[in-house]
C-alpha cells in the first residue's frame, strides 16, 4: 500500500494540470469537482497510506520511495523521491484533510467569483507543492516545494488582481519570503559542500559525525535553515507580510496562512532537528525568536480592528509558540501544537469568511456585533475555535498542546524562566484577544444587517473542524491528568522525545504547573468579559485615552516593522532604479561619443581657408620641432 505514496502529491498536481489545460471548456461544477475532487482523492489515498504506515510501520519506521534521479552532476545527485515517517504522516494528513475541507468550503464561498477555475487551479497547485515540501526526501526537492508554496501564496493573495493593492500585498509576501529563502539556499550550499549530499537522512547522519557540536559550521548551517524558516513562517524579522496577506480570499487565509504554509518553517526545523541539537546557540536563538514573536504578535492582535488581521497576528503568535517549543528542543510539542493549531485556526478563518460574506464584506469588528442570534452555527463554531485558541482548560485541544509547550519551555533541558514567563504572558494575551473577538462580534447590539446566510457546504467543514478542535487534544494527555499519550509514542519513532530534566522539571510536569496556566486562562477570560462585554463605552474610553492611544496605534501597525523596512529597503531601491533608469554606464559611453564630437568641432574651426593661416601654423610647428631639437 505504501507504494501509492507518490500518488498523494501527484493527484492535486494532476488536478492543477487538468484545470490549466481545460480552463476554457469547464463550467463551474466541473471545475469544482476536479478541484475539490483531486484533493479529496489525495486525502483518501493519504488516509490509506498513513493508515497502513501507522498500523504496520515499515522497517526503520520510515518509507523511502525514489521516482527518478533528478540530476546527477559530479557527486551531486538529488532524487525526485519521497520519504514518509511519523512527522510527514502527520503533516500529510493535516494538509490533505484540512485542505479538502477548505476546498469544499471554497466551492460554496467562491460561487460568484468569475475567476472560479483559476482559484481552484492555484489551490490545487498549492496543495501539490505543500505535499512535495513535506514528503521530499532531499533538501533540494523540499526547496522546490518551498518556493512552489511561495508562488501559490503570491498568486492566491493577489487573486482579485483588479485591485493593485491586493497584488502589492501578494508581491510583498513573495519578496519577503524570498529573502528568507535566500538564507535557506545558502544553507543548502553550505550543507552540500560540507557533507556532499542533500538527502536529508544521510545528510543528518553525516552531519552527526563530521560536525563538532557548537562549531561554527554547525551553528551557521542551523542559523541559515532558521533564516529560511523565519521567512516562510512569518517570525519576527520577516513577519510583516502575513497581516497584509489577508488581502486574499478567506479560504486562502485559512489554508495557506493558518494551517499549512506558515508551518513549513516548523516542519523544516523539526525535520532537521539533528542540526539544531548540534548547535545549542542556534536552538537558543530559535527559542528567543519564538518568544519575542509570540509576545509581539499577541499585543498587536489585541488592538486590531480588522477581524482577519487579528487572526493573522494570532497565527504569528501561535507559530511563535511552536518555535519556542522547537527552541527548547521540545520537537514533539511543537509538532503537536501545529496539528491542533491547524484545526482551530482554519476553523476561525473559515468562520470569519462566513461572517465577512454575511455582512457584505464588512471587515471591521467594531461594526459587527450581536450576531449570536443571526448566525447561531457560526457563533458556536467560532466560540469553540476561540476557546481552543485561548486554550480553555480540559475542553479544547489548544489547552493540551499549548500547556505542553508552556511546560516544556520551563521543564525541558533548555527551558528557563524567561521563556516560561514569556509563554505565560503570551497565554494571557491570547485569551484576551480571542475572547475580545467573540464578545465584539457576537454580543452587544447589531450594527450591520446580515445579507447572506451560509449554505450547507460551508457549515459542514465548520462543524467538522469544531469537533476536531475539541477531540484532537485528547491523543496526548499530560501525565498528571491521564497519562494517555499514543501520539507521543507515535512521534518518538521520528523525533527525539522531550526530556523533562531542567531544574524546574518536577514543577513543570506536575498538576501544580498546569494549575498556573489554567488560572491564567480563566482570569484572562474574566478580564476580557469585563473589558469588552457589557460596558462597551468603557472599552472605547480605555483604548481612546491619551496614554494608551499612541501605544495602541504602534501595536496596530505591527510594532513599526513595516515603517522601518519601507525606509531601509524599499525606498533606496526605488530611488536608485528611478535615478539610474537609463543606465549610468550608458552615460559614460555617450560621454566618450560626445568627446569625439567636441574634438572634431574645435579642430575644424582651424580650417579658415586662408593661406597665411596655414603657413603660420606650419611655422609654429617648425618652431616647436626646432625647440625640441635645439634646446634638448
Amino acid at each position, binding site marked *: 500500500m505504501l507504494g501509492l505514496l507518490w500518488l498523494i502529491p501527484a493527484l492535486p498536481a494532476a488536478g492543477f494540470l487538468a484545470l490549466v489545460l481545460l480552463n476554457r471548456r469547464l463550467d463551474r461544477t466541473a471545475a469544482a469537482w476536479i478541484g475539490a475532487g483531486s484533493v479529496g482523492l489525495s486525502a483518501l489515498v493519504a488516509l490509506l497510506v498513513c493508515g497502513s504506515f501507522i498500523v504496520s510501520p515499515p522497517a526503520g519506521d520510515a518509507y523511502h520511495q525514489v521516482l527518478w534521479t533528478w540530476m546527477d552532476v559530479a557527486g551531486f545527485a538529488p532524487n525526485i523521491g519521497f520519504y514518509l515517517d511519523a512527522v510527514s504522516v502527520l503533516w500529510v494528513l493535516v494538509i490533505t484533510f484540512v485542505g479538502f475541507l477548505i476546498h469544499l468550503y471554497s466551492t460554496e464561498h467562491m460561487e460568484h467569483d468569475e475567476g472560479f477555475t483559476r482559484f481552484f487551479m492555484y489551490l490545487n497547485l498549492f496543495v501539490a507543492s505543500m505535499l512535495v515540501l513535506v514528503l521530499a526526501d532531499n533538501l533540494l526537492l523540499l526547496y522546490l516545494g518551498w518556493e512552489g508554496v511561495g508562488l501559490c501564496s503570491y498568486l492566491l493573495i493577489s487573486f482579485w488582481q483588479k485591485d493593485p493593492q491586493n497584488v502589492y500585498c501578494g508581491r510583498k509576501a513573495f519578496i519577503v519570503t524570498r529573502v528568507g529563502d535566500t538564507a535557506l539556499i545558502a544553507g543548502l550550499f553550505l550543507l552540500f559542500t560540507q557533507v556532499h549530499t542533500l538527502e536529508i537522512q544521510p545528510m543528518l547522519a553525516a552531519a552527526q559525525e563530521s560536525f563538532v557540536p557548537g562549531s561554527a559550521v554547525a551553528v551557521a548551517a542551523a542559523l541559515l535553515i532558521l533564516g529560511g524558516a523565519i521567512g516562510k513562517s512569518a517570525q519576527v524579522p520577516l513577519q510583516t507580510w502575513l497581516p497584509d496577506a489577508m488581502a486574499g480570499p478567506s479560504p486562502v487565509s485559512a489554508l495557506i496562512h493558518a494551517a499549512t504554509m506558515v508551518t513549513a518553517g516548523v516542519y523544516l526545523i523539526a525535520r532537521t532537528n539533528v542540526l539544531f541539537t548540534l548547535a545549542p546557540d542556534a536552538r537558543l536563538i530559535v527559542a528567543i525568536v519564538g518568544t519575542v514573536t509570540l509576545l509581539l504578535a499577541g499585543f498587536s492582535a489585541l488592538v486590531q480592528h480588522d477581524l482577519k488581521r487579528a487572526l493573522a497576528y494570532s497565527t504569528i503568535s501561535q507559530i511563535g509558540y511552536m518555535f519556542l517549543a522547537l527552541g527548547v528542543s521540545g520537537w514533539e510539542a511543537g509538532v503537536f501544537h501545529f496539528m491542533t493549531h491547524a484545526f482551530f485556526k482554519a476553523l476561525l478563518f473559515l468562520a470569519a469568511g462566513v461572517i465577512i460574506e454575511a455582512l457584505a464584506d464588512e471587515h471591521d469588528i467594531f461594526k459587527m456585533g450581536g450576531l449570536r442570534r443571526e448566525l447561531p452555527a457560526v457563533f458556536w463554531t467560532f466560540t469553540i475555535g476561540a476557546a481552543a485558541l485561548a486554550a480553555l482548560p480540559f475542553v479544547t485541544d489548544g489547552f493540551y498542546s499549548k500547556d505542553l509547550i508552556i511546560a516544556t519551555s520551563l521543564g525541558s533541558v533548555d527551558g528557563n524562566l524567561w521563556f516560561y514567563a514569556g509563554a505565560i504572558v503570551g497565554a494571557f494575551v491570547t485569551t484576551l484577544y480571542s475572547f475580545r473577538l467573540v464578545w465584539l462580534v457576537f454580543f452587544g447590539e447589531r450594527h450591520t444587517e446580515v445579507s447572506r446566510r451560509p449554505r450547507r457546504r460551508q457549515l459542514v467543514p465548520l462543524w467538522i473542524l469544531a469537533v476536531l478542535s475539541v477531540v484532537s487534544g485528547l491523543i496526548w494527555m499530560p501525565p498528571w491528568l491521564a497519562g494517555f499519550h499514543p501520539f507521543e509514542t507515535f512521534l518518538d519513532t521520528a523525533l527525539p522525545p522531550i526530556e523533562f530534566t531542567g531544574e524546574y522539571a518536577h514543577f513543570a510536569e506536575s498538576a501544580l504547573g498546569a494549575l498556573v496556566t489554567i488560572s491564567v486562562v480563566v482570569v484572562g477570560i474574566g478580564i476580557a468579559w469585563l473589558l469588552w462585554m457589557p460596558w462597551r463605552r468603557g472599552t472605547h474610553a480605555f483604548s481612546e485615552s491619551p496614554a494608551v492611544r499612541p501605544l495602541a496605534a504602534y501595536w496596530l501597525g505591527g510594532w513599526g516593522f513595516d515603517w522601518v523596512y519601507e525606509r531601509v529597503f524599499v525606498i533606496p531601491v526605488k530611488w536608485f532604479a528611478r535615478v539610474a533608469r537609463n543606465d549610468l554606464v550608458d552615460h559614460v559611453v555617450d560621454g566618450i561619443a560626445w568627446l569625439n564630437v567636441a574634438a572634431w568641432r574645435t579642430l*575644424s574651426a*582651424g*580650417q*579658415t*581657408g*586662408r*593661406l*597665411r593661416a596655414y*603657413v*603660420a601654423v606650419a*611655422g609654429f610647428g617648425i618652431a616647436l620641432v626646432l625647440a625640441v631639437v635645439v634646446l634638448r
Partner: protein
Amino acid sequence: MASVSLDHALVLAAILFAIGFAGLLTRRNLIVVLACIEIMLNAGGLAFVAAGARWGQADGQVMFLFVLAMAAAEVAVGLAIAIRFRQSLKSLDVDDADEMKG
C-alpha cells in the same frame, strides 16, 4: 682664402630665410608671396654652398644647382597659377581664395 667661418654663412642664410618667411606671412599679394618663396629657396641654396665650401666638396654646389632648377620650375608654375588666379578671382589677394574653408 676664405677665412669666413661656416657659421657666418649659415647665419646669413638663416637671416635671409627668416625675412623671406616673414614676407610670406604678411604679404597678401601673390607675386610677392612667390618672391618670398624665392628668397627662402635662395637662402637654402646658400646654406648648401656654405656647407660644400666648408669641406671643399663639390656636392654643395651640385645641390645648389638642383635647388636652382627646382626654384625655376616652381616659379614658372607659380606665375602661371598667378595668371589664372588673376582671371578667375579678379584680384591677386591671397585671402580671397578661401573656398577650401573646412
